[in-house]
């Protein structure tokens, strides 16, 4: 090619516009962008906005009512019970699944035999849906034919364990099922974190004669801080979503004793046509997620910028 040819080529070659560069890549990213903007941002804002309007059924004339929906929400006993249940369930679920998960992970970490089999057994409930979990435990906790009946037949006539019939303790009945379903997952997470810890730590603690349980609590646990944080965030965001477990196991009963916020929202939106309350309640759910999420995001990402 002579240099004159090259010169013509140069002038003929226009710089491709920035927008059209890697067009295929941008085209392929359209679903992601739509989902991020329209659904996660758009729909969230839409719901928050409408929680401040009076809308029994859409489309209907929207009327700005300020905090009226929130005032009604917080004066409804059903919502208050939902919140209380969520608090109890959340607190115990977090504590129990973390401690059970950690203990089980530590036991499995001891280079034991049948590790795979045991892990398979502990984790299998996690593969089951909440509906299946709820129904299975509904049957086991059945007051007439379930666990209570069996123990009484064994001779302990006064034995009483009927959480599904007792409004006071029904949430603990759900808790048992929830822990059964999810603790294996926490164990797997923590076990993966434990295995990620430098083997030399164990050699050092052996040389210094520190007992294994002390090593786990005072050395391994602090080193696993990031894994714990991840686990807590996952468990917490799962707790707020609890819905199908309650629907299947108790349908919110007895009465409204085992209602939870997620269920409350769905009922208000789709069954009692009280959208304003539903939006307000779901906004409250979002708020509680943010309370968990913002400190975490600050710790995770805010720290990196400074470091």
């Amino acid at each position, binding site marked *: 090619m002579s240099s004159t040819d090259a010169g013509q080529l140069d002038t003929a070659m226009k710089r491709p516009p920035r927008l059209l560069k*890697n067009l*295929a*890549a941008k085209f392929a*990213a359209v679903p*992601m*962008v739509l*989902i*991020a903007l329209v*659904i*996660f941002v*758009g*729909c*969230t804002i839409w*719901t928050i906005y409408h929680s401040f309007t009076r809308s029994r059924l859409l489309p209907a004339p929207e009327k700005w009512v300020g905090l009226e929906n929130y005032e009604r929400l917080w004066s409804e006993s059903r919502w208050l019970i939902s919140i209380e249940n969520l608090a109890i369930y959340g607190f115990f679920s977090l504590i129990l699944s973390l401690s059970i998960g950690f203990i089980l992970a530590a*036991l499995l970490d001891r280079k*034991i035999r049948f590790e795979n089999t*045991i*892990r*398979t057994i*502990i*984790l*299998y409930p996690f*593969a089951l*849906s*909440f*509906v*299946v979990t709820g*129904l*299975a435990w509904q*049957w*086991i906790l*059945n007051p007439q*034919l*379930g666990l209570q*009946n*069996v123990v009484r*037949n064994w001779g302990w006539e006064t034995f009483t364990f009927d959480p599904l019939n007792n409004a006071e303790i029904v949430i603990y009945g759900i808790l048992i099922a929830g822990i*059964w379903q999810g603790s*294996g*997952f926490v164990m*797997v*997470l923590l076990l*993966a974190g434990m295995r990620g810890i430098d083997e030399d730590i164990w050699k050092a603690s052996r040389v210094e004669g520190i007992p294994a349980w002390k090593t786990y609590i005072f050395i391994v646990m602090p080193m696993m801080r990031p894994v714990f944080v991840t686990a807590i965030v996952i468990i917490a965001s799962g707790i*707020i*979503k609890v819905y*199908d477990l309650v629907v*299947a196991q108790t349908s919110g009963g007895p009465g409204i004793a085992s209602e939870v*916020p997620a269920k409350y*929202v*769905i009922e208000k*939106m789709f069954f009692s046509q009280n959208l304003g309350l*539903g939006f307000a*309640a*779901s*906004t409250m*759910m*979002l708020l509680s*997620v943010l309370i968990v*999420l913002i400190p975490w995001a600050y710790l*995770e990402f805010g720290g990196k910028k400074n470091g």
Partner: protein
Amino acid sequence: MGDTSTEMMTGPRGPKKRRVMSSNNIIIYGTLALVCLYYLLPLYVMIVTSLKGMPEIRLGNIFSPPVEVTFEPWVKAWSEACTGINCEGLSRGFSNSVKILIPSVFVSIAVASVSGYALVNWRFKGSETFFTILIFGAFIPYQVMIYPIVIILRETGGFIGDVTGTDFRLMGSIWGLVIVHTIFGMPILTLLFRNYFTSVPDELFKAARVDGAGFWGIYFKIMLPMSLPIFVVAMILQVTGIWNDFLFGVIYTKPETYPMTVQLNNIVNSVQGVKEYNVNMAATLLTGLVPLTIYFVSGRLFVRGIAAGAVKG
């Protein structure tokens, strides 16, 4: 110092003796055995209950094995159990679930893997921002977005129906649910693929570009064949997740297209008629069978999937 020689003769020598039944081991294995019992118990109870007749259930205890094994509850659960609306059993729910599952898994994985690939290798202005929104979106309670999505599905579905002159609808149809599963599968799957593609050496991508492959060429010929394990992991994640879904099934479908979980709940918690616990347990087991099979077959990959999904980007 003179003692050393005698000690050398008599002192410990050869491999250290290990006690198999040390107290430590008894505690560890004992605890683990009890734990396994607790986790296995519900499964055991479900199985034995589903194999008993109702008279035996009313008399006996839930832990005792069936005196007389019957498969009738299973047959009934599959084809005759009533939901309060109809008495077709779980079979319709099963076929609905399959019809929902296949396109949902396919579409969600296709969209998320391409997005993850674009995020890693073809960054554009703002791509990281969209990804961050996506990740934070994973934590937004579904309840916040559920109603506006109903409106979006109703309007766009209706619009498409009008334009094409068909009775096409998204709300209440399987395709609406496919879209919903794709949307809510996006955060976790995109994270999964993004993390995986990040681990593919950048030089491989550069080499392919020098070799003249474009966006889709590199995706299909280089990335896809290299990433089969992560596609399997994503499939396990999605099949289990979509099969087990209850909430979206209730909201976005109608009774004729209810997935199996919803159908199951309606059968068991139906207020009509006498409670047939054996049929209920058979139905529950039937619904749990698909994810359980996947879990036991895939084993390590399942564990890898949930661990990978949990690890932050």
